[in-house]
Protein backbone atom coordinates (compact mmCIF):
# COMPACT_ATOMS: atom_id res chain seq x y z
CA UNK A 1 0.00 0.00 0.00
CA UNK A 2 1.11 3.55 -0.61
CA UNK A 3 2.74 5.42 2.23
CA UNK A 4 2.09 8.84 0.78
CA UNK A 5 0.76 10.96 3.66
CA UNK A 6 -2.16 12.26 1.58
CA UNK A 7 -3.49 8.88 0.61
CA UNK A 8 -2.86 7.64 4.13
CA UNK A 9 -4.86 10.53 5.51
CA UNK A 10 -7.68 9.69 3.12
CA UNK A 11 -7.63 6.06 4.09
CA UNK A 12 -7.54 6.88 7.79
CA UNK A 13 -10.38 9.34 7.39
CA UNK A 14 -12.37 6.70 5.55
CA UNK A 15 -11.67 4.18 8.29
CA UNK A 16 -12.71 6.69 10.94
CA UNK A 17 -15.85 7.56 9.04
CA UNK A 18 -16.95 3.99 8.36
CA UNK A 19 -15.59 1.94 11.21
CA UNK A 20 -15.34 4.32 14.17
CA UNK A 21 -18.87 3.62 15.45
CA UNK A 22 -18.42 -0.14 15.06
CA UNK A 23 -15.13 -0.12 16.95
CA UNK A 24 -16.49 2.19 19.64
CA UNK A 25 -19.57 -0.02 20.08
CA UNK A 26 -17.35 -3.06 20.71
CA UNK A 27 -15.06 -1.19 23.08
CA UNK A 28 -17.95 0.16 25.17
CA UNK A 29 -19.37 -3.34 25.44
CA UNK A 30 -16.04 -4.67 26.71
CA UNK A 31 -15.01 -1.86 29.08
CA UNK A 32 -18.53 -0.76 30.11
CA UNK A 33 -17.50 2.90 30.11
CA UNK A 34 -18.21 5.36 27.28
CA UNK A 35 -15.47 7.82 28.20
CA UNK A 36 -12.74 5.22 28.63
CA UNK A 37 -13.73 3.55 25.35
CA UNK A 38 -13.70 6.85 23.44
CA UNK A 39 -10.32 7.86 24.83
CA UNK A 40 -8.85 4.46 23.99
CA UNK A 41 -10.16 4.57 20.42
CA UNK A 42 -8.91 8.12 19.96
CA UNK A 43 -5.45 7.01 21.11
CA UNK A 44 -5.56 4.08 18.69
CA UNK A 45 -6.32 6.40 15.75
CA UNK A 46 -3.51 8.74 16.81
CA UNK A 47 -1.13 5.79 17.01
CA UNK A 48 -2.22 4.57 13.57
CA UNK A 49 -1.49 8.02 12.20
CA UNK A 50 2.08 7.99 13.51
CA UNK A 51 2.86 4.28 12.92
CA UNK A 52 1.31 3.42 9.60
CA UNK A 53 3.34 5.63 7.26
CA UNK A 54 6.46 3.54 7.96
CA UNK A 55 4.85 0.18 8.24
CA UNK A 56 2.00 0.66 5.69
CA UNK A 57 -1.64 0.04 6.50
CA UNK A 58 -2.07 -3.49 7.86
CA UNK A 59 -4.31 -5.97 6.03
CA UNK A 60 -6.71 -5.98 8.96
CA UNK A 61 -6.83 -2.34 10.04
CA UNK A 62 -9.91 -2.76 12.25
CA UNK A 63 -8.32 -5.58 14.23
CA UNK A 64 -5.16 -3.50 14.56
CA UNK A 65 -7.10 -0.47 15.84
CA UNK A 66 -9.15 -2.59 18.24
CA UNK A 67 -6.07 -4.31 19.63
CA UNK A 68 -4.34 -0.97 20.09
CA UNK A 69 -7.45 0.52 21.73
CA UNK A 70 -7.59 -2.42 24.20
CA UNK A 71 -3.98 -1.67 25.05
CA UNK A 72 -4.83 1.97 25.82
CA UNK A 73 -7.96 0.96 27.76
CA UNK A 74 -5.81 -1.33 29.95
CA UNK A 75 -3.41 1.58 30.55
CA UNK A 76 -6.37 3.80 31.39
CA UNK A 77 -7.75 1.25 33.88
CA UNK A 78 -4.34 0.86 35.55
CA UNK A 79 -4.19 4.61 36.13
CA UNK A 80 -7.52 4.55 38.00
CA UNK A 81 -7.34 4.67 41.80
CA UNK A 82 -9.28 1.45 42.32
CA UNK A 83 -7.46 -0.41 39.58
CA UNK A 84 -6.92 -3.60 41.61
CA UNK A 85 -10.66 -4.09 41.60
CA UNK A 86 -10.53 -3.79 37.82
CA UNK A 87 -8.06 -6.70 37.60
CA UNK A 88 -10.61 -9.19 36.20
CA UNK A 89 -11.52 -6.67 33.48
CA UNK A 90 -7.85 -5.97 32.72
CA UNK A 91 -7.19 -9.72 32.35
CA UNK A 92 -10.20 -10.05 30.10
CA UNK A 93 -8.99 -7.20 27.88
CA UNK A 94 -5.49 -8.71 27.73
CA UNK A 95 -7.05 -11.93 26.52
CA UNK A 96 -9.04 -10.06 23.85
CA UNK A 97 -5.87 -8.28 22.82
CA UNK A 98 -4.10 -11.61 22.49
CA UNK A 99 -6.91 -13.05 20.38
CA UNK A 100 -6.56 -10.19 17.94
CA UNK A 101 -2.83 -10.78 17.57
CA UNK A 102 -3.21 -14.04 15.67
CA UNK A 103 -4.60 -14.56 12.20
CA UNK A 104 -7.64 -12.50 13.08
CA UNK A 105 -9.40 -10.94 10.10
CA UNK A 106 -11.66 -7.93 10.17
CA UNK A 107 -14.51 -10.19 9.06
CA UNK A 108 -14.61 -11.80 12.48
CA UNK A 109 -15.42 -8.51 14.19
CA UNK A 110 -19.07 -8.43 15.26
CA UNK A 111 -21.20 -5.35 14.65
CA UNK A 112 -22.43 -4.10 18.03
CA UNK A 113 -23.74 -0.72 16.88
CA UNK A 114 -27.33 -1.71 17.65
CA UNK A 115 -26.54 -1.91 21.37
CA UNK A 116 -24.85 1.47 21.15
CA UNK A 117 -27.86 3.06 19.44
CA UNK A 118 -30.33 1.64 21.98
CA UNK A 119 -28.19 2.77 24.93
CA UNK A 120 -27.92 6.30 23.55
CA UNK A 121 -31.71 6.40 23.10
CA UNK A 122 -32.56 4.98 26.54
CA UNK A 123 -35.66 6.60 28.10
CA UNK A 124 -33.73 7.30 31.34
CA UNK A 125 -32.03 10.08 29.35
CA UNK A 126 -34.05 13.05 28.20
CA UNK A 127 -34.76 13.27 24.48
CA UNK A 128 -32.41 16.14 23.62
CA UNK A 129 -29.65 14.23 25.43
CA UNK A 130 -30.53 11.14 23.39
CA UNK A 131 -30.18 13.12 20.16
CA UNK A 132 -26.90 14.72 21.26
CA UNK A 133 -25.42 11.44 22.45
CA UNK A 134 -26.41 9.61 19.25
CA UNK A 135 -24.80 12.32 17.10
CA UNK A 136 -21.70 12.26 19.28
CA UNK A 137 -21.09 8.53 19.71
CA UNK A 138 -22.78 6.85 16.74
CA UNK A 139 -22.24 9.57 14.11
CA UNK A 140 -18.91 10.80 15.46
CA UNK A 141 -19.86 14.49 15.79
CA UNK A 142 -17.56 16.45 18.09
CA UNK A 143 -19.12 18.28 21.05
CA UNK A 144 -18.63 21.47 19.01
CA UNK A 145 -20.57 20.07 16.05
CA UNK A 146 -23.37 18.81 18.31
CA UNK A 147 -23.48 22.21 20.03
CA UNK A 148 -23.89 23.91 16.65
CA UNK A 149 -26.94 21.72 15.89
CA UNK A 150 -28.65 22.92 19.07
CA UNK A 151 -27.32 26.49 19.14
CA UNK A 152 -25.58 25.78 22.40
CA UNK A 153 -22.18 26.82 23.68
CA UNK A 154 -19.59 24.11 23.08
CA UNK A 155 -18.66 23.95 26.77
CA UNK A 156 -22.30 23.53 27.82
CA UNK A 157 -22.81 20.78 25.26
CA UNK A 158 -19.57 19.06 26.22
CA UNK A 159 -20.62 19.06 29.90
CA UNK A 160 -24.01 17.60 29.01
CA UNK A 161 -22.41 14.81 27.00
CA UNK A 162 -20.03 13.95 29.84
CA UNK A 163 -22.92 13.94 32.32
CA UNK A 164 -24.97 11.64 30.06
CA UNK A 165 -22.09 9.19 29.62
CA UNK A 166 -21.51 9.07 33.38
CA UNK A 167 -25.21 8.56 34.04
CA UNK A 168 -25.23 5.56 31.67
CA UNK A 169 -22.36 4.02 33.59
CA UNK A 170 -23.40 4.89 37.16
CA UNK A 171 -27.11 4.17 36.85
CA UNK A 172 -26.60 0.86 35.08
CA UNK A 173 -28.37 1.64 31.80
CA UNK A 174 -27.99 -1.74 30.06
CA UNK A 175 -25.85 -2.02 26.97
CA UNK A 176 -28.11 -4.29 25.01
CA UNK A 177 -30.83 -4.58 22.41
CA UNK A 178 -34.15 -4.63 24.31
CA UNK A 179 -36.06 -7.93 24.54
CA UNK A 180 -39.13 -8.49 22.40
CA UNK A 181 -41.49 -7.16 25.09
CA UNK A 182 -39.65 -3.82 25.28
CA UNK A 183 -38.60 -3.58 21.65
CA UNK A 184 -41.62 -1.80 20.09
CA UNK A 185 -41.54 1.16 22.53
CA UNK A 186 -37.76 1.39 22.59
CA UNK A 187 -37.55 1.17 18.78
CA UNK A 188 -40.09 4.01 18.51
CA UNK A 189 -37.83 6.14 20.66
CA UNK A 190 -34.82 5.39 18.43
CA UNK A 191 -36.87 6.30 15.34
CA UNK A 192 -37.99 9.51 17.00
CA UNK A 193 -34.34 10.45 17.65
CA UNK A 194 -33.39 9.68 14.03
CA UNK A 195 -36.27 11.77 12.69
CA UNK A 196 -35.33 14.65 15.03
CA UNK A 197 -31.81 14.52 13.57
CA UNK A 198 -33.25 14.50 10.06
CA UNK A 199 -35.46 17.48 10.80
CA UNK A 200 -32.57 19.35 12.43
CA UNK A 201 -31.02 19.19 8.96
CA UNK A 202 -34.20 19.75 6.98
CA UNK A 203 -35.34 22.81 8.94
CA UNK A 204 -31.89 24.16 9.74
CA UNK A 205 -31.66 27.51 11.47
CA UNK A 206 -30.37 30.39 9.44
CA UNK A 207 -26.84 30.30 10.79
CA UNK A 208 -26.45 26.93 9.12
CA UNK A 209 -28.11 27.79 5.85
CA UNK A 210 -31.51 26.43 4.97
CA UNK A 211 -30.49 22.83 4.93
CA UNK A 212 -27.76 20.96 6.65
CA UNK A 213 -27.00 17.92 4.50
CA UNK A 214 -24.74 16.49 7.21
CA UNK A 215 -27.73 15.92 9.49
CA UNK A 216 -30.00 14.53 6.80
CA UNK A 217 -27.20 12.19 5.66
CA UNK A 218 -26.52 11.05 9.23
CA UNK A 219 -30.22 10.35 9.78
CA UNK A 220 -30.29 8.27 6.59
CA UNK A 221 -27.13 6.46 7.71
CA UNK A 222 -28.66 5.70 11.12
CA UNK A 223 -31.93 4.44 9.64
CA UNK A 224 -30.09 2.30 7.08
CA UNK A 225 -27.85 0.88 9.81
CA UNK A 226 -30.91 0.10 11.93
CA UNK A 227 -32.61 -1.59 8.97
CA UNK A 228 -29.50 -3.62 8.24
CA UNK A 229 -28.98 -4.79 11.84
CA UNK A 230 -32.66 -5.17 12.75
CA UNK A 231 -34.35 -6.16 9.49
CA UNK A 232 -38.08 -6.47 8.78
CA UNK A 233 -39.28 -3.78 11.16
CA UNK A 234 -42.20 -2.06 9.44
CA UNK A 235 -41.68 1.31 11.11
CA UNK A 236 -37.94 1.41 10.34
CA UNK A 237 -38.79 0.84 6.68
CA UNK A 238 -41.55 3.41 6.98
CA UNK A 239 -39.15 6.05 8.31
CA UNK A 240 -36.63 5.24 5.57
CA UNK A 241 -39.34 5.63 2.93
CA UNK A 242 -40.50 8.91 4.50
CA UNK A 243 -36.99 10.40 4.51
CA UNK A 244 -36.33 9.20 0.95
CA UNK A 245 -39.55 10.88 -0.24
CA UNK A 246 -38.34 14.12 1.40
CA UNK A 247 -34.89 13.71 -0.14
CA UNK A 248 -36.34 13.15 -3.61
CA UNK A 249 -37.69 16.72 -3.56
CA UNK A 250 -34.44 18.40 -2.50
CA UNK A 251 -33.36 19.43 -6.02
CA UNK A 252 -36.74 21.14 -6.54
CA UNK A 253 -36.91 22.58 -3.02
CA UNK A 254 -33.51 24.21 -3.47
CA UNK A 255 -33.69 25.10 -7.16
CA UNK A 256 -33.44 28.79 -6.28
CA UNK A 257 -30.08 29.91 -4.84
CA UNK A 258 -31.39 31.98 -1.93
CA UNK A 259 -34.81 30.72 -0.95
CA UNK A 260 -36.53 27.39 -0.54
CA UNK A 261 -39.45 26.54 -2.79
CA UNK A 262 -42.51 25.07 -1.10
CA UNK A 263 -44.12 21.88 -2.37
CA UNK A 264 -46.87 23.87 -4.08
CA UNK A 265 -44.46 25.82 -6.28
CA UNK A 266 -41.84 23.17 -6.97
CA UNK A 267 -40.86 22.17 -10.49
CA UNK A 268 -41.84 18.52 -10.26
CA UNK A 269 -39.60 17.60 -13.20
CA UNK A 270 -36.69 18.18 -10.81
CA UNK A 271 -37.86 15.48 -8.39
CA UNK A 272 -35.41 12.60 -8.17
CA UNK A 273 -37.44 9.73 -9.65
CA UNK A 274 -34.80 7.20 -8.60
CA UNK A 275 -35.26 8.16 -4.94
CA UNK A 276 -39.05 8.15 -5.31
CA UNK A 277 -38.86 4.61 -6.69
CA UNK A 278 -36.57 3.59 -3.82
CA UNK A 279 -38.95 5.16 -1.30
CA UNK A 280 -41.92 3.40 -2.89
CA UNK A 281 -40.15 0.09 -2.71
CA UNK A 282 -39.28 0.61 1.00
CA UNK A 283 -42.88 1.56 1.62
CA UNK A 284 -44.19 -1.60 -0.08
CA UNK A 285 -41.77 -3.69 1.99
CA UNK A 286 -43.09 -2.00 5.13
CA UNK A 287 -46.75 -2.53 4.25
CA UNK A 288 -46.12 -6.21 3.49
CA UNK A 289 -45.14 -6.66 7.16
CA UNK A 290 -48.70 -5.68 8.18
CA UNK A 291 -47.77 -3.69 11.24
CA UNK A 292 -49.00 -0.17 10.58
CA UNK A 293 -47.52 2.78 12.47
CA UNK A 294 -47.11 6.56 12.30
CA UNK A 295 -43.97 6.63 10.11
CA UNK A 296 -45.59 4.41 7.49
CA UNK A 297 -48.65 6.69 7.43
CA UNK A 298 -46.46 9.80 7.06
CA UNK A 299 -44.57 8.03 4.26
CA UNK A 300 -47.92 7.27 2.60
CA UNK A 301 -48.87 10.95 2.76
CA UNK A 302 -45.55 11.91 1.23
CA UNK A 303 -46.05 9.18 -1.38
CA UNK A 304 -49.43 10.60 -2.41
CA UNK A 305 -47.69 13.94 -3.12
CA UNK A 306 -45.05 12.13 -5.17
CA UNK A 307 -47.75 10.57 -7.38
CA UNK A 308 -49.34 13.93 -8.27
CA UNK A 309 -48.17 15.56 -11.49
CA UNK A 310 -49.06 19.00 -10.16
CA UNK A 311 -50.22 20.65 -6.95
CA UNK A 312 -53.81 20.81 -8.22
CA UNK A 313 -53.62 17.16 -9.25
CA UNK A 314 -53.00 16.09 -5.60
CA UNK A 315 -55.42 13.54 -4.14
CA UNK A 316 -56.35 15.64 -1.07
CA UNK A 317 -59.22 13.33 -0.07
CA UNK A 318 -56.70 10.54 0.30
CA UNK A 319 -54.37 12.78 2.30
CA UNK A 320 -57.21 13.84 4.62
CA UNK A 321 -58.02 10.16 5.24
CA UNK A 322 -54.36 9.45 6.02
CA UNK A 323 -54.18 12.32 8.55
CA UNK A 324 -57.29 10.92 10.26
CA UNK A 325 -55.47 7.60 10.51
CA UNK A 326 -52.30 9.31 11.78
CA UNK A 327 -54.32 11.04 14.49
CA UNK A 328 -55.11 7.60 15.97
CA UNK A 329 -51.37 7.06 16.55
CA UNK A 330 -50.30 10.64 17.21
CA UNK A 331 -53.09 12.76 18.67
CA UNK A 332 -50.91 15.89 18.61
CA UNK A 333 -51.44 19.49 17.55
CA UNK A 334 -49.03 19.33 14.58
CA UNK A 335 -51.04 16.41 13.16
CA UNK A 336 -54.28 18.30 13.70
CA UNK A 337 -52.85 21.39 11.97
CA UNK A 338 -51.70 19.40 8.94
CA UNK A 339 -55.06 17.63 8.85
CA UNK A 340 -56.80 21.03 8.78
CA UNK A 341 -54.59 22.29 5.94
CA UNK A 342 -55.29 19.12 3.93
CA UNK A 343 -59.03 19.55 4.55
CA UNK A 344 -58.84 23.11 3.25
CA UNK A 345 -57.18 21.92 0.03
CA UNK A 346 -59.72 19.11 -0.28
CA UNK A 347 -62.31 21.88 -0.45
CA UNK A 348 -63.79 21.61 3.04
CA UNK A 349 -62.63 24.99 4.32
CA UNK A 350 -65.23 25.22 7.11
CA UNK A 351 -64.29 21.81 8.54
CA UNK A 352 -60.65 22.91 8.38
CA UNK A 353 -61.46 26.13 10.23
CA UNK A 354 -63.35 24.23 12.96
CA UNK A 355 -60.47 21.82 13.40
CA UNK A 356 -58.05 24.71 14.01
CA UNK A 357 -60.46 26.28 16.52
CA UNK A 358 -60.19 23.10 18.62
CA UNK A 359 -56.50 23.76 19.24
CA UNK A 360 -55.57 25.24 22.57
CA UNK A 361 -53.21 28.05 21.56
CA UNK A 362 -51.97 28.39 25.15
CA UNK A 363 -50.28 25.05 24.61
CA UNK A 364 -48.33 26.16 21.56
CA UNK A 365 -47.85 29.93 21.57
CA UNK A 366 -44.69 29.79 19.44
CA UNK A 367 -45.62 27.16 16.89
CA UNK A 368 -45.04 28.70 13.49
CA UNK A 369 -46.95 26.14 11.35
CA UNK A 370 -50.09 26.94 13.36
CA UNK A 371 -50.05 30.55 12.14
CA UNK A 372 -49.21 29.53 8.58
CA UNK A 373 -52.16 27.11 8.58
CA UNK A 374 -54.47 29.79 9.96
CA UNK A 375 -53.26 32.21 7.26
CA UNK A 376 -53.93 29.63 4.56
CA UNK A 377 -57.45 28.92 5.77
CA UNK A 378 -58.25 32.63 6.26
CA UNK A 379 -57.12 33.23 2.68
CA UNK A 380 -59.51 30.53 1.43
CA UNK A 381 -62.33 32.01 3.52
CA UNK A 382 -61.74 35.31 1.69
CA UNK A 383 -60.44 37.04 4.81
CA UNK A 384 -57.18 38.57 3.52
CA UNK A 385 -56.70 40.93 6.50
CA UNK A 386 -56.93 38.00 8.89
CA UNK A 387 -54.51 36.05 6.70
CA UNK A 388 -51.98 38.91 6.74
CA UNK A 389 -52.27 39.18 10.51
CA UNK A 390 -51.50 35.45 10.93
CA UNK A 391 -48.62 35.71 8.46
CA UNK A 392 -47.05 38.55 10.40
CA UNK A 393 -47.27 36.45 13.58
CA UNK A 394 -45.55 33.62 11.71
CA UNK A 395 -42.93 36.07 10.46
CA UNK A 396 -42.09 37.12 14.01
CA UNK A 397 -41.47 33.47 14.95
CA UNK A 398 -39.37 32.48 11.96
CA UNK A 399 -35.68 31.93 12.69
CA UNK A 400 -34.77 31.54 9.07
CA UNK A 401 -34.16 34.46 6.70
CA UNK A 402 -35.23 32.52 3.63
CA UNK A 403 -38.42 31.40 5.29
CA UNK A 404 -39.17 35.04 6.18
CA UNK A 405 -38.70 36.02 2.54
CA UNK A 406 -41.18 33.31 1.62
CA UNK A 407 -43.74 34.58 4.16
CA UNK A 408 -43.20 38.15 2.96
CA UNK A 409 -44.02 37.08 -0.60
CA UNK A 410 -47.28 35.51 0.58
CA UNK A 411 -48.18 38.75 2.38
CA UNK A 412 -47.39 40.82 -0.71
CA UNK A 413 -49.66 38.65 -2.82
CA UNK A 414 -52.56 39.24 -0.40
CA UNK A 415 -52.21 43.03 -0.42
Amino acid at each position, binding site marked *: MSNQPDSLRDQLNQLMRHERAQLLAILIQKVNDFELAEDALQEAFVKAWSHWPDAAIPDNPKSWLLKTAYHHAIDGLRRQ*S*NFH*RKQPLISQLQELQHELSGAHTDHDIADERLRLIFSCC*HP*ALDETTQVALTLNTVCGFTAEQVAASFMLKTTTQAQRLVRAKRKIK*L*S*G*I*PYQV*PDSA*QLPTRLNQVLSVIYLIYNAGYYAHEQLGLINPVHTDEAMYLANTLNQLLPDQAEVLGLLALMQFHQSRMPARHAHPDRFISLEHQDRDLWDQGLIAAANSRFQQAMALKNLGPYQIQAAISGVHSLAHSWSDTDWTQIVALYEKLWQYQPTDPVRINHAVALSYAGDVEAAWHLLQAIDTQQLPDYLPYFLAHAQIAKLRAEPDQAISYLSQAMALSKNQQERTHIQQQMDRLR
Partner: protein
Amino acid sequence: MQYLLMIYSAEDAGPQPGDDDFMQMLGEYQKFTDEVEQAGAMLGGEALEATTTATTVRVRNGQSHITDGPFAETKEALGGYYLLDCKDLDEAIRYAAKIPSAAYGCVEIRPIMVLPS
Protein backbone atom coordinates in the same frame (compact mmCIF):
# COMPACT_ATOMS: atom_id res chain seq x y z
CA MET B 1 -26.22 -3.41 40.89
CA GLN B 2 -28.07 -2.21 43.94
CA TYR B 3 -30.86 0.33 43.61
CA LEU B 4 -32.90 2.23 46.15
CA LEU B 5 -36.49 2.60 44.99
CA MET B 6 -38.00 5.54 46.89
CA ILE B 7 -41.76 5.74 46.92
CA TYR B 8 -43.14 9.29 46.89
CA SER B 9 -46.75 10.32 47.05
CA ALA B 10 -48.94 13.00 48.56
CA GLU B 11 -49.89 11.69 51.98
CA ASP B 12 -53.58 12.26 51.36
CA ALA B 13 -53.46 10.51 47.97
CA GLY B 14 -54.29 6.85 47.52
CA PRO B 15 -56.05 4.54 49.98
CA GLN B 16 -55.95 5.65 53.65
CA PRO B 17 -56.00 3.39 56.75
CA GLY B 18 -59.60 2.51 57.50
CA ASP B 19 -60.62 2.68 53.82
CA ASP B 20 -61.85 -0.56 52.28
CA ASP B 21 -59.25 -0.44 49.58
CA PHE B 22 -56.42 0.13 52.09
CA MET B 23 -56.31 -3.59 52.93
CA GLN B 24 -56.40 -4.34 49.24
CA MET B 25 -53.37 -2.09 48.70
CA LEU B 26 -51.49 -3.82 51.55
CA GLY B 27 -52.23 -7.09 49.75
CA GLU B 28 -50.78 -5.67 46.53
CA TYR B 29 -47.68 -4.53 48.40
CA GLN B 30 -47.33 -8.01 49.93
CA LYS B 31 -47.57 -9.49 46.44
CA PHE B 32 -44.83 -7.18 45.19
CA THR B 33 -42.60 -7.93 48.19
CA ASP B 34 -43.09 -11.68 47.60
CA GLU B 35 -42.14 -11.23 43.95
CA VAL B 36 -38.85 -9.41 44.63
CA GLU B 37 -38.04 -11.84 47.46
CA GLN B 38 -38.60 -14.85 45.25
CA ALA B 39 -36.52 -13.25 42.49
CA GLY B 40 -33.68 -12.86 45.01
CA ALA B 41 -33.65 -9.09 44.45
CA MET B 42 -34.90 -7.98 47.89
CA LEU B 43 -32.24 -6.47 50.14
CA GLY B 44 -34.57 -4.47 52.33
CA GLY B 45 -37.53 -2.19 52.43
CA GLU B 46 -39.90 -0.50 54.85
CA ALA B 47 -42.89 1.77 54.95
CA LEU B 48 -42.35 5.10 56.70
CA GLU B 49 -44.53 6.98 59.15
CA ALA B 50 -46.03 10.26 57.91
CA THR B 51 -43.85 13.36 57.48
CA THR B 52 -45.57 14.89 60.53
CA THR B 53 -43.33 12.59 62.57
CA ALA B 54 -40.17 13.67 60.72
CA THR B 55 -37.27 15.52 62.29
CA THR B 56 -34.53 17.20 60.28
CA VAL B 57 -31.02 17.68 61.59
CA ARG B 58 -28.46 20.06 60.13
CA VAL B 59 -25.03 20.68 61.63
CA ARG B 60 -23.65 24.13 60.87
CA ASN B 61 -20.39 25.37 62.40
CA GLY B 62 -20.47 22.42 64.78
CA GLN B 63 -23.92 23.32 66.06
CA SER B 64 -26.84 20.97 65.58
CA HIS B 65 -30.00 22.60 64.31
CA ILE B 66 -33.05 20.47 64.75
CA THR B 67 -36.23 21.27 62.88
CA ASP B 68 -39.61 19.69 63.14
CA GLY B 69 -40.75 18.20 59.87
CA PRO B 70 -39.21 16.97 56.62
CA PHE B 71 -36.32 18.88 55.01
CA ALA B 72 -38.43 19.97 52.07
CA GLU B 73 -42.07 20.98 52.40
CA THR B 74 -43.44 19.43 49.24
CA LYS B 75 -46.75 17.81 48.54
CA GLU B 76 -45.18 14.50 47.63
CA ALA B 77 -43.26 12.89 50.46
CA LEU B 78 -41.08 9.80 50.82
CA GLY B 79 -43.44 7.12 52.07
CA GLY B 80 -41.28 4.02 51.92
CA TYR B 81 -38.48 2.31 50.08
CA TYR B 82 -37.17 -0.92 48.66
CA LEU B 83 -33.49 -1.72 48.39
CA LEU B 84 -33.16 -4.12 45.46
CA ASP B 85 -30.37 -5.96 43.72
CA CYS B 86 -31.03 -5.75 39.97
CA LYS B 87 -29.24 -6.74 36.80
CA ASP B 88 -29.48 -3.24 35.37
CA LEU B 89 -31.56 -0.08 35.31
CA ASP B 90 -34.18 -1.67 33.05
CA GLU B 91 -34.91 -4.33 35.67
CA ALA B 92 -35.12 -1.67 38.39
CA ILE B 93 -37.55 0.32 36.21
CA ARG B 94 -39.70 -2.79 35.68
CA TYR B 95 -39.91 -3.39 39.45
CA ALA B 96 -40.59 0.29 40.14
CA ALA B 97 -43.57 0.19 37.80
CA LYS B 98 -45.05 -2.69 39.82
CA ILE B 99 -45.01 -0.83 43.15
CA PRO B 100 -48.70 -0.12 43.91
CA SER B 101 -48.15 3.55 44.89
CA ALA B 102 -46.56 4.24 41.47
CA ALA B 103 -50.16 4.40 40.21
CA TYR B 104 -50.84 7.69 42.07
CA GLY B 105 -47.41 8.78 43.35
CA CYS B 106 -44.01 8.13 41.86
CA VAL B 107 -40.93 6.02 42.45
CA GLU B 108 -37.45 7.52 42.26
CA ILE B 109 -34.65 5.10 41.42
CA ARG B 110 -31.17 5.82 42.68
CA PRO B 111 -28.19 3.52 42.16
CA ILE B 112 -26.28 2.69 45.33
CA MET B 113 -22.78 4.13 45.13
CA VAL B 114 -19.93 1.65 45.09
CA LEU B 115 -17.34 3.13 47.39
CA PRO B 116 -13.64 2.69 46.58
CA SER B 117 -12.27 0.03 48.96
